[in-house]
């Protein structure tokens, strides 16, 4: 039984008329590896960089591939008890509320970044 990740990669690859060999060449892997990724129930070890390369070639969201591969990027691994608690609480929320929270947090992060750039004088022509 192919995994959800395998199904998504295969479906997208076929929709773009990309052959196994061509996609394997583009991501610097063997065709046999790609077959295994697309068809195997037990995913072969897929490094973060490989999934990022696949996402870039296929026009997919790298976070979706990482989530389907059950991987947490090293830079996003929880670093404190608060991180873990937040993660646990968010998982408890219904999907719709998660999306709302995501949008809200994205707005806050963006405005925070703008404020920080202003304070540092980034983009100031004077």
């Amino acid at each position, binding site marked *: *039984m*192919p995994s959800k990740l395998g199904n998504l990669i295969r479906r997208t690859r076929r929709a773009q008329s990309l052959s196994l060999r061509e996609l394997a060449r583009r991501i610097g892997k063997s065709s*046999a590896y790609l077959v295994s990724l*697309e*068809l195997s129930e037990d995913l072969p070890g897929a490094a973060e960089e490989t999934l990022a390369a696949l996402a870039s070639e296929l026009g997919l969201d790298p976070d979706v591939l990482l989530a389907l591969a059950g991987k947490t990027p090293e830079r996003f691994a929880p670093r404190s008890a608060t991180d873990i608690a937040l993660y646990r609480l968010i998982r408890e929320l219904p999907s719709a509320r998660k999306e709302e929270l995501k949008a809200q947090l994205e707005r806050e992060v963006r405005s925070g970044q703008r404020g920080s750039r202003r304070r540092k004088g980034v983009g100031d022509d004077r």
Partner: protein
Amino acid sequence: MSNRTYPHELLEGMSLKNGWRVVQRLAKPEAGTGGTFSFGYIAERSDGQRGYLKALDFFSRLPEADDPARALEPLLKAFNFERDLLARCRANRLSRVVTPLDDGAVTIPNVPGPSTVQYIIFELAEGDVRTQMARADELDVAWGLRSLHQMAVGLEQLHSINVAHQDLKPSNVLLFDDLKSSKLADLGRAAAKGEEPPHYHLPVAGDCGYAPPELLYAAEPRSWEAKRFGCDAYLLGSMIASLFTTVAMTPLIMMGLASRFHWRKWAGSYEEVLPYVRAAFADAVSYVADEFPTDFKPDLTEALQQLCEPDPSLRGHPKDRPLRGGNSYSLQRYVSKFNLLATMAEFRFVRRK
């Protein structure tokens, strides 16, 4: 194995009978499915012909054996079986099977213990199908179809003298003439009707990574033809999958099965697991067919379905079923079909140029 050096490792620089000289030792090979262990060299004859010399290793494993005489017996039997088989192929002028140029024995001087090495010299290949598969980003379809045609011819030639190869895989198809000509190599796991080499009673004679499912699930067909020629038919079909995906049919089928139905875990009968295997087979065929060039897709898909059919009683071309008086595993129709497809692909290639 101990670290001492054995006579079969010391042939470099030796002069052999019939004007042969061993000019280069090749990298140490891994043990193949053939069961015999050997060392490879390049040999050159006084007239300039070069060959691949296979030096047989009968002695390096004997010190580890509880009973060296018994341990030696199957090695000698396997070697003599393969040598006799190769002689038959040569006598029958099988053009698509790699046959030996020469064979003999040479004594290595100043070596303690047994110092005579048996060798066989074969035509020197330029590579095997893996070389070509790995080289191209996109498979050269004309080359792949011609190679497939030549493999089918090689198997048909062997079948015509009642020999089944049983170990057809990319590494056992050698390439000659600027990589344009394919020949079957390594008869170490072959079966000859009426003879019993040491591997005769093994359920899977060749490589388990390529073997037909009925053999992996220990459901050996009763007749010699169904077990041996049926295996070759499956392996030929599997080469279609290997050429276009670089993965053989058996792992493609196994990847589509829930793990409890995998041959390594299944404890029931083949009849019970067959519906699941056939469903996984259908998915695998569809997966491989997605990689076929559009023009050849219907013909290649049909050949793949017929040759790799998991039920050995349904394998092969429907018009060759025993009820119709045919040989179920005859490859004649595939020889013709692959020849036609290869010719069409070659013609298109020439027109494009």
